[in-house]
């Protein structure tokens, strides 16, 4: 039984690895992993080494591994600068309906806020605002531009 179970687990692990690598080799192109932007072209910095934004997959508000790493850097920075408050702006690409995108931007901003809070930043220091598809950082109509626009941006307010 134990042997069986182990075998099954190994099989699962191998299988998932295969799928994941298949995905990443198939879809990784330039500055995108799947449809999540991984480049630095639009990124600004709250401080040296502290990127101001994280990127999302189409219609998703879940944080990628890279996003979580960025937000941990923001949390460290905010812990060091105790008087600093921020607004997190949530954005969507232009390929959805306006009202749904407003909701999606709100969800993305709050995903980032929640993560900062789990790293000890008080929710009182973080406000959120959604702009939906209203404020693209890249006005082009291309998969790359859309990936850069699906973002949440942490902005200093004081």
């Amino acid at each position, binding site marked *: 039984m134990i042997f069986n179970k182990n075998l099954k687990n190994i099989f699962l692990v191998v299988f998932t690895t295969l799928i994941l690598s298949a995905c990443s080799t198939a879809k990784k192109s330039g500055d995108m992993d799947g449809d999540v932007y991984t480049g630095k072209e639009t990124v600004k910095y709250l401080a040296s080494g502290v990127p101001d934004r994280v990127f999302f997959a189409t*219609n998703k*508000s879940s944080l990628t591994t890279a996003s979580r790493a960025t937000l941990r850097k923001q949390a460290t920075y905010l812990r060091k600068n105790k008087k600093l408050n921020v607004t997190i702006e949530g954005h969507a690409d*232009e*390929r*959805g*309906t*306006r*009202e*749904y995108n*407003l*909701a*999606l931007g*709100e*969800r993305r*901003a*709050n*995903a980032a*806020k*929640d993560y900062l809070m789990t790293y000890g930043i008080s929710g009182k220091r973080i406000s*959120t*605002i*959604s*702009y939906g598809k*209203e*404020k*693209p*950082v*890249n*006005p*082009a*109509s*291309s998969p790359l531009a859309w990936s850069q626009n699906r973002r949440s941006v942490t902005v200093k307010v004081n």
Partner: protein
Amino acid sequence: MKRIFFILVIYFLSLNSLKALIEVDITRGNLDPLPIAVSPLHVDIKSEKYQNLKIDELGINISSIIEKNFKGTGLFNPLKKEAFVQKPDIAHLKPRFEDWRLIKAQALVTGKILIKDEKLKVEFRLWDLTAAKEMTALAFTTTPSNWRRVAHIISDKIYERLTGEEGYFDTRIIYVAESGPKDQRIKKLAIMDQDGSNTKYLTLGNELVLTPRFNPTNQMVSYLSYFRNMPRVYLLDIETGTQEVVGNFPGMTFAPRFSPDGKKIIMSFAEDGNSDIYTMDLEKRVVERITNHSSIDTSPSFSPDGKYIAFNSDRSGLQQIYVMRSDGSDVKRITFGKGIYGTPVWSPRGDLIAFTKVRKGRFYIGVMRTDGSGERLLTENYYQEAPSWSPNGRVLVFYRETKAGSKGEGFSATLWSIDITGYNERKLTTKTDASDPSWSSLLSK
């Protein structure tokens, strides 16, 4: 905005109750539009001056608006005036039917106007040329500055007589006027007559405004404003210009619409990132929560009897359309087709729901029955959404955006309309780029 003077007197001159021989079927695409002659309205020589109004041209101007309205329906083919065979005043008394039939007209509109004591007196008649009969006649009095509305009201009466359906010409459209580059758009609330004239701006463009919608009496508008960078639903009185925020919510409220009785606003409220649907009673100021789900619930729209609400939710994983009772119970998903569905809007007739569908990177405007069956996609485009119904439930207005180049160049936002038959797609004339249209009900009802 100046209050519009409503018609003072309406009375029937005569009404022939015999069944008309000509009629227009609007339930399918009309490939053979009805040839109609709209004679310039005869201007009574006893007419007095009124402000800057060019009285001599008033008769022909009114008939031109009627012709444009008719042409826009795709159901009528207004004939060229050069071919007209009788003078307006004589035709209005009694047309020589056989002469009008020679130019292939099947229906004829004649009329007379008189300005006296600062009032505009209008009468018009609709003639069935095949049966050689008067079909309808009407006279009314209004203020002369209302002359464009006179044309729309005549258009509505004739449309009604020939199609058996209520018209939609004496109406307005509220929308978002857009200007500036794509990544720095300036947006203002704007209102215009259904035919694109009389554009007025209701906000200055200092803050982002979105999704304006009329209340049932067309006096109020609910919309989303980013005033002080706090996105909230606002209520605007069009006549007085007064604005107020709707409710006292600690986060973003958006996607507002009025209930059919105009007493409530239904909208989304985002709390800790999660959007649910709420109503607020405008008199009692009572807020009621309608949905409570960890997914995005938005774009709510009441059925015309107020008993049901259609809305958009991603509780299944992706955006789909759901219908529930107005208290939030009995939630049913109604869309199961391939692709995602958004922006459900209940038809004023109650029989259909219009929606936006996205599939394989293309955007569709469609209609379906209220249980989700009988889906019909009316138009496909790179980007289009936000359908709004004409008051008779026959036409949808929506907006389109074009694909932009690498610097955002080539981007535009425009208003379009299409019949629910899928025919007669038309671009609306607006002074600027435009989005988020909302169609009023009939103004003179």
